[in-house]
């Protein structure tokens, strides 16, 4: 009787582990090229994301100020979230104009049924009131969130992922994001 019970518990555990692994891997979508990388908040993290994609051997065009028209022929939109006042200055636009632009490109991507991936690689420096509007906006419409842990110490992204059932990977460093990106675009 005792042996049977142990067998049942072990079998259940194995089944549950396998099922959760399968579910987890199913929840991470595969992405296709061509890829367009844009910013949400105009931080220079979009430049770093460009280097990251190069390291992952994924061809991508980075346009920090991309508009809906730039989505022509694109299969995946990567949004690099995080606010920078210097970046907005460099772009010559206000925060409100940037919010409108991001809203509009995300809407266009949804209408075109493009896959959207969000990167948050700036850690604490890209969190806080100014950044979080952009972070939330981009995270909620994405099918995959790739976040450097320091930016999720308060589970901001994990909570969104949980509530909206979005796949999320937390990595220790930006350089650790190379492999998940390569994997997401692997054929």
């Amino acid at each position, binding site marked *: 009787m005792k042996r049977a019970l142990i067998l049942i518990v072990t079998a259940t555990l194995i089944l549950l582990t396998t099922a959760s692994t399968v579910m987890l891997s199913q929840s991470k979508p595969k992405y296709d090229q061509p890829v367009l990388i844009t910013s949400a908040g105009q931080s*220079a993290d979009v430049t*770093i994301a460009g*280097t*990251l994609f190069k390291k992952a051997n994924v061809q991508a065009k980075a346009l920090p100020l991309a508009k809906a028209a730039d989505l022509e022929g694109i299969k995946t939109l990567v949004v690099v979230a995080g606010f920078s006042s*210097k970046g907005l200055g460099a772009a010559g636009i206000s925060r409100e104009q940037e919010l409108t632009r991001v809203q509009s490109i995300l809407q266009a991507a949804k209408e075109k049924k493009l896959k959207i991936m969000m990167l948050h690689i700036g*850690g604490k420096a890209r969190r806080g009131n100014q950044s979080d509007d952009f972070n939330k906006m981009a995270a909620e419409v994405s099918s995959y969130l790739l976040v450097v842990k320091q930016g999720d110490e308060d589970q901001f992204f994990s909570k969104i992922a949980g509530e909206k059932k979005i796949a999320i990977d937390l990595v220790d460093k*930006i350089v650790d994001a190379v492999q998940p990106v390569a994997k997401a675009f692997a054929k």
Partner: protein
Amino acid sequence: MERHHIIAFSLLAIVVVVCTLAGREFLRMHEPDEIIPGPGVTSTVSLSTYFGALAGTSSDANVYVLDSGRQGATALVLGGTHPNEPAGFMTAVVLTEHVTVQTGRLIVIPQVCSSGFTCTDPLEGYPQSFSVQSRTKLRSFRFGARGSNPITEWPDPLVFLQYPSGQQLSGNEVRNLNRSYPGRPDGTVTERVAYAVMRLIEREKVDIAFDLHEAAPEIPIINAIVTHEKGKDAAASALFTLESENLQYALEMSPPNFHGLSHREWGDRSPVFPYLMETSNPIQGRLRGVTNEELVVKGIDQKYYEAAQIGSMRITYDLAGEPLARRVGRHLRGLQALLGAYMEAMPEKGIVVEGIPAYEEIVARGLGEYLH
């Protein structure tokens, strides 16, 4: 003489003594810091070499040249653009005293805004100097003001019209070297210093340049590299290198419409790849408590620790604080990573600097270990 006359004269005498002592103490800030050229320094010139009008003024500055004699890139490092940001100029001092150059050339100006080292900012309670124990002696360095000494170009205008952009800034920014580029030969003292730096960049054909700063821990642009658009790929590459060593930096773009800044004007007006780096310095912050020499060197402040505990800080701030050695270590490692990334981008332009202390090394052994 009546009693009240005696009292009045006595009080007057006390005031004269106090003013004399305080004045002497304040005038000591005009005595230059001792910077001892290390084995890598091949020549020392003055900033006035590039613009003669600075000669003999408190705005002239020493320029240390470390020339390998082998053809390669020329790098320029400015410390002391803001003399109240000690990690900037102490990094330049370490380079001057400790490193050698194997390929290319390194030009270092540790205290570029030299008149700003002759005073402190009013109402801040800043110490006039701080000390670092080197291997052989106690070295003292001045802690200056953010801008040039007001006595050199008093009074500040109500509104500063940046030249030549015409951009309007608050009046006291007229003495801020990092709002004064490209400068002009007949301008204010600060504009003349900026003009001399531009002439140096031009005459020495500088390829890559660094302007080293610090900022309050609560502001967003700390532990950051600010880059002109032409240097952004090299900066991103350097950032990867630094991050793999657990040194996190934010990358910030230089706004093209914010004029007078080194990373903007150097980049727009010369072939140079300009970078500005910021570390986090509690003595510049508004939350700080006791403001003294210890805060400059140890960077430990209880109020910042409390702010970090309640999640108000964007950087990690623990009880170890932000010591000067760590801030200098970050600047040195950042500079080294950017030089590496520059060489990757421009393989025909080599610059090899030897003897830059590793970040962990300078944090563990202290800043004094790398000073004469």
